[in-house]
């Protein structure tokens, strides 16, 4: 069959899975007084529609910031405004000031779900198709398989269509940025990435690799000549895009400061709930949250994050290739997730996006990471009543990615690029690291299944009510840490350009 029809089938499958998940419950359904993220998004529509721009981020009599106050950058607010206008056309009750608080109905849920689908269809899905067809290697069949696997990644589907958020917009825009840079349209790529950054501040996790890649490219072209011109072009684009996004707030510095304050709520502490990152896992052993002051916590996390992203950023700066860029995106966002301040469990989607881009090159580690990332959000899914879609989409993704990408056949030491490990483990007895990895993968998947089952079926002991969420996050944390090391080692130890090219040809 022709490619276009195969791709259309994949997209249709992806859309079907998405809509089928959206038939399930959402966060905070029928749980007054605070509800959940679904109500937050609806509330933002209400606020942006009824209040003037300069009140959006301020606590006023009409805008109680303690009730889901707007804490995302302006593009999110504009998007909410756009949705609110559509909502007003369909049913004015949905966005009426104050009166619509906690509004829930069959029709409204349908409307909200549809807004997610439309955004996904317009932004994320085309970017995935474009990326797979123009920037990944292999036969057309393999590219089609990649499209399907990326589109079936359960984490994103469950959070956007189950829990309810618009990650496909911010991640989709970031992916457009990657596609832009990959195709050599640097200016366009950085413009789109700035949009993504202005949709969700968490995209900062991806910003350093973008910066280093572009700067490295300018260096390579020579800062005295074409490089400088490119640098100026990109800088102007970024500044102008930023200015345009923030235009309504620029009239008054107080406005800008307030928005920034809303975006980075430093006072909320090192972490909340159970997150599979360093601080939460460390907290099991040492109660850092109580021992250290907020400021110390802030500096501690800042330093460790910087240290963790430094090697990959420097390497990327020196060698700005697409392969390095993809790895740096993983390394940077994963380091941010593991070490930075105020991380949510859903932020694992940020490293998951660039890992999706590695599905074609390093199938087994990528699948492993993506499974672990979905698993790490299990407590959230259970809270939202998404058990069935979680189980089904996870199993489906596991099966299809392993089958279509032949992940278990491509795990020799060479294919997994385990050479550096071999050198590090020189004193260890001679064994096949490829099959060791495979066995670890089997074990880990079994353990995830077991822990999922226990979380659902068993009651935790009375003195340890949070036992299972904690086990889930510590278990996932070890995966993330191990894979952070792995991806860093691959990035740093990448052989010189010529060798890699030969390798490509032999494939």
């Amino acid at each position, binding site marked *: 069959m022709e490619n276009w029809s195969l791709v259309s*089938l994949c997209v249709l499958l992806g859309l079907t899975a998405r809509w089928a998940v959206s038939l399930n419950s959402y966060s905070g359904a029928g749980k007054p007084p605070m509800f959940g993220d679904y109500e937050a998004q609806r509330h933002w529509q209400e606020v942006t529609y009824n209040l003037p721009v300069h009140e959006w981020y301020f606590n006023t009599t009409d805008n109680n910031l303690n009730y889901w106050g707007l804490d995302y950058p302006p593009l999110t607010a504009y998007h909410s405004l756009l949705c609110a206008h559509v909502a007003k056309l369909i049913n004015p009750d949905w966005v009426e000031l104050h009166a619509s608080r906690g509004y829930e109905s069959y029709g409204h849920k349908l409307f909200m779900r549809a807004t997610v689908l439309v955004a996904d269809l317009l932004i994320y899905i085309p970017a995935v198709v474009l990326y797979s067809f123009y920037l990944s290697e292999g036969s057309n069949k393999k590219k089609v398989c990649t499209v399907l696997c990326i589109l079936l990644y359960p984490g994103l589907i469950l959070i956007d269509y189950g829990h309810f958020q618009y990650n496909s917009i911010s991640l989709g825009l970031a992916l457009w940025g990657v596609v832009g840079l990959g195709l050599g349209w640097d200016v366009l790529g950085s413009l789109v990435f700035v949009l993504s950054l202005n949709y969700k501040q968490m995209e900062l996790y991806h910003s350093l690799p973008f910066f280093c890649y572009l700067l490295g490219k300018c260096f390579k072209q020579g800062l005295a000549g074409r490089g400088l011109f490119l640098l100026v072009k990109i800088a102007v684009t970024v500044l102008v895009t930023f200015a345009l996004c923030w235009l309504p707030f620029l009239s008054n510095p107080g406005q800008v400061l307030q928005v920034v304050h809303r975006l980075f709520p430093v006072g909320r502490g090192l972490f909340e709930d159970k997150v599979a990152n360093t601080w939460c896992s460390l907290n099991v052993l040492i109660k850092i949250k109580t021992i250290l002051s907020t400021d110390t916590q802030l500096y501690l996390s800042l330093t460790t994050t910087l240290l963790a992203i430094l090697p990959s950023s420097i390497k990327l700066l020196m060698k700005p290739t697409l392969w390095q860029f993809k790895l740096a995106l993983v390394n940077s966002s994963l380091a941010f997730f593991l070490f930075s301040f105020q991380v949510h469990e859903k932020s694992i989607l940020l490293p998951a996006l660039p890992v999706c881009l590695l599905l074609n090159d390093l199938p087994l580690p990528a699948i492993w990471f993506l499974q672990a990332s979905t698993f790490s959000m299990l407590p959230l899914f259970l809270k939202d009543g998404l058990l069935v879609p979680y189980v*089904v989409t996870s*199993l489906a993704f596991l099966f299809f990615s392993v089958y279509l990408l*032949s992940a278990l056949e491509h795990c020799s030491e060479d294919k997994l690029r385990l050479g550096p490990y071999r050198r590090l483990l020189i004193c260890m007895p001679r064994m096949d690291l490829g099959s060791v990895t495979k066995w670890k993968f089997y074990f880990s998947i079994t353990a995830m299944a077991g822990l999922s089952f226990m979380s659902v079926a068993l009651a935790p002991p009375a003195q340890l009510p949070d036992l299972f969420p904690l086990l889930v996050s510590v278990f996932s944390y070890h995966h993330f840490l191990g894979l952070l090391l792995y991806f860093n080692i691959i990035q740093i130890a990448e052989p010189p350009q010529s060798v890699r090219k030969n390798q490509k040809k032999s494939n």
Partner: protein
Amino acid sequence: TVMATPRADDWSWFPALALGVSFLKCLLINAYHSTDFEVHRNWLAITHSFPVSKWYHENTSEWTLDYPPLFAWFEYGLSHVAQHFDKEMLVVQNLVYTSPTTVLFQRLSVIVTDMVFIYAVRECCRSVREEKGFKDLLGHPFFILAALLLWNFGLLIVDHIHFQYNGFLFGILLLSVARHLQGRHLEGALLFAVLLNLKHIYLYIAPAYGIFLLRSYCLTEDNTDGSVRWSSFSPVRLVALGSIVISVCALSFGPFIAMGQLPQVLSRLFPFKRGLCHAYWAPNVWALYNMVDKALSVLGVRLKLLDVAKLPKASMTGGLVQEFQHSILPSVSPSITLICTLLSIMPAVLSIWRRPRGARGFLRCLVVCALGSFMFGWHVHEKAILMAILPFSILAVESREDAGIFLMLTTTGHYSLFPLLFTAAELPIKVLLMLLFTLYSFTSLKKLFRGSLLNPLETTYLLGLVAVEILCEVVYPLLPWQHTLPFVPLLVTSVYCSLGVSYSFIRLYVSLLRQDGTDKHKQL
């Protein structure tokens, strides 16, 4: 990758295809389900709570048991698993009981019993004729057939959203067809006898089975010109066949005959009190007949040839009421539909009697019987179209002409199932699944037969379905007539689809009779 290296003996793609669709079915667990869900829950409760003698008498719920005894036993078996999920669903008085575990159990029971269907599809795929020559896996007829059957749009929405157990029933039918294709006729007959005792709607295709088995199994040889050679009649085979069929029926109906309940059971199985057409007209001849009647009456009133007061009232609100009274054309009785049905399948049945063309000829005859009864039957449900579509898939991957008819029939037939899912949340699902299946069937069959399969007129008709869909589900709800004339979308859908189904039926007949012609020609 796996897809790039096709080997006939490598069947790893088959579990992938089957698992994929099973995952999709599991995702639909929380989708809308119709009253059929309650029907089956009630049957679980009845068979679990009462002795066999009460099964066909129980009427606490309006959804009384109206499938043959083997299906009741099937529900009885399921109820033993059900009690481990939620005992409350097995209480007859708990009408419309839908706890989450009940939903989970009932949905899973459909998904798990679909294993029969999956196995049957595999057997069908192994019996498909192969063209020689290197092709990539996606272009093989057996792959296309597996995808067309496993991912069939109609079966997905009827079983896994609307809620019914057609998957395993069609599994038994396809398995029986596959056994005939493989020459294992006794097994095929046994399976069909079991199927008849699970759901009696399959009686409609029994003529094809009966004639085929008599002609091609009990008569072991033909004359050289292909005509009947009576001397080859094998009484042993007839006795074997007969004893299989009779023992299955005895097993199923025997206890009820012994208890003297046969009339009661039969009255449940054949409720002729229902109207000619279902609330939503299945796209068949009667939909066209009703439409002509309505058009004539409107015309008559306009031209002052008729008196409005004298017209039956129902005719002006028709479409939503069960009883449709004709105002101009003569009313149709059950016996007339029976005669029409028999007349419509007669030529096909006679054709395989005179010139049996092996199991494939039988299969074609079976499809004609299914489609003929759909076209002319009494109180036909739109879902019955699947009885023609699914077996026809096997023929469609083997011949170019059949592929063309198949595309017409499936696309129209599947679209005519759209009104089954009228809830807004399921609209995207049904559209997406329909697009998925239709796009796949068109591109794969086009690739298989290297070229376009439809003429411009047919293509235009099928594109018209898009217009009908937009008109009925997007534009019409916004118009003011929605409240005064709510039945118009259903009416438009069923009349438009009945054109396509009728056209496919005629073309199918033409192909069958033309084969007769060429056979005769060859002999001359």
